[in-house]
């Protein structure tokens, strides 16, 4: 009789723990997905501005074909990205390409004077800022998830539910402002 109660009690506790950890892991995983969606939104927003930017700089920057091609290529890659890794890679490429484009733009006073261009530059700089924050949030979410599934006793349930550690994004050193590179030959 006593043994039966004990067995029943243990089974009950095990069931309660399973439900608790299952829900916890699902919630944290959703948080990671949601955090990824935030990055995705900002990357897409930035990519959407690229054609407009290309059109604006076209007339001014004929001699900078390579830089312009880099930007367009990164957008192409972003549009065709089928996995998260590809999208992140394309996003990084685009960040770099835009950085050099804006650096070179310093050499073209006419371009810099164009209102359209300065508006785009501002918009892209604010998106850049948001991408950095979205990545930070994503990494925070992943860290919480990893901590949750690697601590005892959650680790037992994580194994049962086949959950493994997720990897964080590499954070580039935070540039708060767009770099002000001066290539003029004064």
């Amino acid at each position, binding site marked *: 009789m006593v043994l039966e109660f004990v067995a029943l009690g243990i089974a009950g506790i095990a069931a309660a723990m399973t439900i608790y950890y299952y829900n916890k892991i699902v919630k944290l995983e959703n948080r990671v997905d*949601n*955090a990824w969606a935030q990055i995705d939104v900002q990357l897409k927003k930035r990519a959407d501005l690229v054609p407009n930017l290309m059109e604006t700089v076209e007339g001014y920057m004929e001699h900078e074909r390579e830089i312009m091609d880099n930007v367009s290529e990164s957008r192409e890659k972003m549009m065709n990205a089928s996995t998260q890794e590809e999208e992140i890679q394309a996003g990084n490429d685009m960040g770099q390409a835009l950085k050099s484009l804006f650096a070179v733009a310093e050499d073209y006073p006419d371009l810099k004077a164009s209102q359209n261009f300065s508006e785009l530059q501002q918009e892209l700089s604010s998106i850049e*800022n948001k991408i950095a*924050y*979205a990545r*930070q949030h994503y990494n925070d979410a992943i*860290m*919480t998830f990893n901590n949750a599934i690697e601590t005892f006793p959650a680790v037992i349930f994580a194994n049962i539910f086949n959950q493994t550690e997720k990897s964080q994004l590499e954070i580039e050193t*935070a540039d*708060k402002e767009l770099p002000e590179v001066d290539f003029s030959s004064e």
Partner: protein
Amino acid sequence: MMLQDQIKWNKRKSYLLLFLVPTILLGLIYVTGRIFVPTASPFLILALGSGISTLYVLFSYFKSDEMILSVVGAEPADQEKHKQLYDLMEGLTISSGMPMPKLYIQDQKQINAFATGRKPEKGVICVTTGALDKLEKDELEGVLAHELAHIQNQDILFMTVAVALIGVISIISELLLHSMFFGAGNDETPPWAIAIGFALAILAPISARLVQLAMSRKREYLADATGAEITRYPEGLASALEKISQQNEKMKVNKSVSHLYFSNPFKSRNWFSTHPPTEKRIERLRLM
């Protein structure tokens, strides 16, 4: 620790405080009942007293954000005109996973800001025109993050309820004290009730207020830390605080809303101050 966990921890601590202040209030109600209507059941008095107090707290809970915005004369910020403000705020909501608060602007030369709204979905952040004009982008971002942190940590809920409860305590104490000058109570009033009533009428408002202020200062530090965690750039906020401590303009604000502001509008610093000393806040931020 992710901020969501911090909120939980913070909530628990607030409950402790929100337990202390009502206890003082209930004690006051009980004694007042014994003085004025010693024949009535103390339970009836307590039920009636706490019922009325609850109504008062609920009213301020639901109405305080509107009232505050109209008291300080804040206007909604224009999306086009204040694009940078909206951009910065949006970035911070992404980083913290918070809903976007409504943005307001108060026409005021002094650099300052406050947050209100009883839950994150109804958050409101108001900055002064002085803050927009005088702060650099990183500094403004630090200030906004601090305000967002107040919303995230649910400080506003806590402060609103605490301030409302203290309001009730002050009213009852005031009544009690005044009536004592005219010989409170009647033949049935037990003598101990008069003595304790007198002591409570003086001590209750002060002690309740001290508890609230102590928590308010703790929460300012916490909001600084949470804000720095949102931006990962404590220097922005530190440098904004430095600018604030150097400004000369006196701020004209109603004393009843001073606890809301980002930095203490009155520059007092002691046990009766809503904010910790600015130098201490800067020092802690720079050590992060």
